């Protein structure tokens, strides 16, 4: 039951460039979407969220875009920094949150 899909298991981006992480979902009942970041040996940490009634939310270097007709959301990180190297999870939520499988982002020097 993959209600939230992250089809790219990994992504490598040059430092200073834009990182774009993608996520597709099948459950149109999600009220909100979130992105979490996870470093090895640590729990997921919240990055940014977006309500299903919006199409964009921005917080510093992080912007999330939601395309409801395509059931697609993306996280843009610009400029990418070495500390952004981590696994990024896309989550959909209503009563509970459903994790995607994650995308490992490598920021190259």
């Amino acid at each position, binding site marked *: 039951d993959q209600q939230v899909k992250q089809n790219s298991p990994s992504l490598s981006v040059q430092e200073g460039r834009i990182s774009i992480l993608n996520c597709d979902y099948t459950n149109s009942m999600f*009220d*909100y979407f*979130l992105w*979490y970041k996870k470093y090895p*040996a*640590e*729990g*997921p*940490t*919240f990055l*940014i*969220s*977006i*309500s299903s009634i919006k199409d964009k*939310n921005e917080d510093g270097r992080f912007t999330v875009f939601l395309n409801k007709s395509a059931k697609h959301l993306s996280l843009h990180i610009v400029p990418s920094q070495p500390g952004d190297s981590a696994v990024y*999870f896309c989550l959909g*939520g*209503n*009563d*509970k*949150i*459903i*994790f*995607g*499988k*994650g995308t490992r982002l490598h920021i190259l020097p």
Partner: protein
Amino acid sequence: EPEVTQTPSHQVTQMGQEVILRCVPISNHLYFYWYRQILGQKVEFLVSFYNNEISEKSEIFDDQFSVERPDGSNFTLKIRSTKLEDSAMYFCASSPFPGQGDSNQPQHFGDGTRLSIL
């Protein structure tokens, strides 16, 4: 910044034994959660807990699992008779409110307990 803390960081247990994983949520939070991540797989929801009772649980959370808030600070996950397939990272999370419609009220996660069943 307040944190969710989990102990122990690594628990090794013989198959068939009971194990209790402990969590101290953020003090003013009211909603508590357990998740697990089997190696190489995605993070899976187990259970949510509010007002001293389970509010929702997944298919994974069968009769071998139980949760408890024995005092005002701890939130525990008990596995009664562990199986090899229970080996995973277990994450505790807490939030002030249910769900996360408000970007200022996300679930806060602990760093996890790695459970290894031998």
